[in-house]
């Protein structure tokens, strides 16, 4: 096992973590401020990916495809929030689970009706090749782009939440919604916008991961659970927690999947190692969450006062 392999996998882990963060950011705010379990958050990721693939094919430009998908998904998210999800905030968690589960069925099958079961989406040709990061270390240019966009958006979101008036209102809402409302914050209107931003971030993640994974119906379901794990680890309602949680989960998952196999090969027969590695890696994320909950039941960065 070379140092370069570790470095490369660490970059992959960071990249996956940043994409998880884009999903988790919206989810944690909806969960933290509105106390709403939104299982359909992963569907926005899927919708974003499909729109990006469709628009990229239509315009011939990946950039136009992604930008268009982000804008359309944001509008779609806001319409969804104002039209349906808003009525669910006051309901119990069970009703929210049933309604958003229903929404997954509708959005999955609706996407299938419009676009079919999957759409092709590939990275722009200019970014198809590798870049030499260090002498001897080649890294795919497209993954580097994801890394850059992820970091830039994380920074932008941090500025938005920490330095703007709207961010202060969102933080106030996450810390104590009743008090924020009593002080005159129009939480419902604020939340339609927050939801739109969350949906846009989902679309960015879906569009950027599309060429690496696959743009297909049901792609939101598995990543949704990882996003929930991220926000539980980070502390529900906390953007900072979501970032730390996402990078931890991305690192554990990616490093576990690849490096663990190499380590296990030292002790186990190869076929055992290649079977046990990914299994332990997938489980490790959940074990980590259970440990965090056992030690810090409110997550690493609790938002609620």
């Amino acid at each position, binding site marked *: 096992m070379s140092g370069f392999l570790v470095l490369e996998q660490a970059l992959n882990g960071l990249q996956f973590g940043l994409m998880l963060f884009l999903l988790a950011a919206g989810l944690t705010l909806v969960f933290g401020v509105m106390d709403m379990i939104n299982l359909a958050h992963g569907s926005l990721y899927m919708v974003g990916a499909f729109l990006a693939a469709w628009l990229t094919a239509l315009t011939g430009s990946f950039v136009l495809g992604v930008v268009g998908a982000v804008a359309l998904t944001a509008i779609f998210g806001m319409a969804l929030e104002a039209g349906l999800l808003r009525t669910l905030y006051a309901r119990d968690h069970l009703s929210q689970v049933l*309604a958003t589960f229903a929404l997954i069925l509708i959005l999955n099958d609706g996407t*299938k009706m419009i676009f079919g079961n999957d759409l092709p989406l590939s990275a722009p040709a200019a970014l198809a090749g590798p870049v030499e990061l260090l002498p001897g270390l080649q890294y795919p240019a497209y993954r580097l782009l994801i890394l850059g966009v992820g970091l830039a958006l994380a920074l932008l979101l941090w500025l938005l939440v920490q330095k703007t008036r709207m961010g202060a209102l969102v933080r106030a809402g996450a810390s104590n919604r009743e008090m924020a409302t009593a002080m005159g914050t129009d939480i419902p209107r604020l939340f339609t916008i927050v939801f739109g931003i969350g949906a846009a971030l989902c679309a960015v993640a879906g569009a950027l991961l599309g060429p690496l994974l696959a743009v297909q119906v049901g792609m939101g379901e598995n990543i949704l659970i990882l996003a929930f794990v991220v926000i*539980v680890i980070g502390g529900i309602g906390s953007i900072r927690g979501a970032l730390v949680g996402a990078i931890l989960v991305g690192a554990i998952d990616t490093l576990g999947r690849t490096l663990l196999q190499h380590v296990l090969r030292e002790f186990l027969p190869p076929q055992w190692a290649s079977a046990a590695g990914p299994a332990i890696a997938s*489980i490790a994320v959940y074990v980590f969450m259970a440990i965090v909950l056992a030690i810090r*039941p409110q997550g690493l960065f609790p938002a609620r006062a």
Partner: protein
Amino acid sequence: MTAPADARAAAAPNRLGLHVAALALLGAAALALPWLLGAFGLDFYLSLATRIVVYAIAATSLNLVLGYGGMVSFGHAAFVGVGAYVTAVLISEGTQSGFVHLVATLAISALAALVIGAISLRTRGVYFIMITLAFAQMLFYLANSVKGYGGDEGLSIRTRSLFALGGWVLDLKQPLAIYYVALGVLALALLALARFAPSRFGRAVLALRDDDVRAEALGFATYRLKLVVFVVAGALGGVAGALSVNLQGYVSPNVLHWTQSGTLMVMVILGGVATVWGGLVGAAVLLLLQEVLAAYTEHGEFWTGWVLLGVVLFARRGLVGVLLRRAAPRLS
């Protein structure tokens, strides 16, 4: 939460006769179903009926945890899956005895529920939801990685559970046998659930569901009571899994996928949380709806979603709640 139950209890004396008659009719219809289907040449639907009964058992076991115990478990598929895998693995290893399958299923799914419950019940609220989900996910990935038993492709079995006692043999490969066995398990589960709510134990569980701080102050061992409910429900879920393997002859990690836990939750909420019939009604309505839609459209899921959404928005207590409100006069 308790209003319909109270109304029902108060209305019970003068409606007892009606209840008994309705139950007798339902029981007779369920018993005669294979014969009725045969008479109309619809034998094909017996496996659908069995599937409804098996799902009803799983949903009823979840309703015990979720409705009566107030524990929003988002990982109930874990126990159904454990039961399914235990039975499938035993059969694939050559153990034919249904009694062995049953005992092993009960023991291992109860043990799984004991471990998962003991840890999860230390958390509450949304954290309980997430940690039960996390345990189910661990088992999902574990099942995916065990290549010896099919891995992600699943495990097919050629024979089924065989109950032999003296000269008397019951082979669950027979469609009638599995239907009646599943029906018997469901009837026992519903009977136990109906007896549970008014019992001393049941009242204690309902008390701590409604206000666990008060229940604890009154001296109830809340943690232990909840754990008992969780384990019993896990064992019953395991039996549902064992039956589903016998019905389908196949098990795959998908029985452990989180959308399965979600489907069971949807059935309970759709039917009626904390109602005896909720699990059965939810399972029957959802599976029949899917079956009917599949006959007319390729996009059954789409329309199923709209129906579920309509239920959330317009039938807040679930279908059983709506029916009871119509049937029983409002007393409170």
